[in-house]
């Protein structure tokens, strides 16, 4: 029972947050690499951005107890919104051009 309680303490402390953020980042990176679908790649990018924001917030609590980390996380949210809007516009454009969502077919500018 005490093992469970200490595990709970670990998970809800700084280390637990960092572990969650690390797994989010790695999973996002894997999604970016392995997804064929351009939207899937976008999902991976969003996960990685979220992991970064989480780290900023948690370090701002434990390292400085100041607002600055949260401001950076807020900027990350803004940038992610802009990025998602533009990326989806590009994806729709690409779909109209190629009738496909496969990101590896976007090779017009190769060599």
């Amino acid at each position: 029972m005490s093992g469970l309680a200490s595990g709970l303490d670990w998970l809800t402390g700084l280390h637990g947050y960092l572990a969650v953020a690390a797994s989010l980042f790695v999973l996002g990176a894997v999604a970016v690499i392995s997804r064929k679908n351009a939207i899937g790649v976008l999902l991976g990018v969003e996960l990685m951005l979220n992991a970064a924001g989480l780290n900023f917030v948690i370090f701002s609590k434990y390292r400085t107890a100041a607002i600055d980390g949260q401001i950076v996380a807020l900027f990350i949210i803004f940038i992610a919104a802009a990025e998602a809007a533009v990326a989806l516009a590009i994806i729709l454009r690409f779909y109209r051009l190629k009738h496909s969502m496969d990101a590896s077919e976007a090779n017009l500018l190769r060599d």
Partner: protein
Amino acid sequence: MTVGLKIVLAAAQILTVLSAVAVTFHPNILYASIALFFAFCGVAVMFVYAGADFLAGAQLIVYAGGVTILVLFAIMLTQWLYKSKLRDIRMRVVAPLALIAPALTYGLCVALRGLGDHVLKTTPANFEAFSSAPKTMPIGQALLTNYLLPFEAITILLLSALVGGVWLARPK
């Protein structure tokens, strides 16, 4: 924190990670984006516990309300609906990555553990008080004083993203 609150936070963390696994490995892109929605919500709960109440609201509004809907829209406008065409994932790439990913996560966790221990040694005494204080006013003041330049830059970025998005997605 009471045990009950800790259990809620731990549940949110586990939900977040499981949703992220689904985002990465679910063969159906629609289910992956719904999993991403739940991951966003889980991260918002973690923000609340980390003392970022306003940020949690922004996270839900922008990510859960904005980005998820955009992604669902893009999926529904471009996929063959009701066909299994929604399935696409590179199994050849995924299989080795699925093996590497846990090792990579573990390595990252070990590295971050050292950093975390270092940070915990120098944690300011007031961090619990900080995390329970309201954040709206400090964020507003910081955005218009110390962070005014990045704030203005963000506004220009958002405006250009708006115009660019409209221009890119315009009909022929």
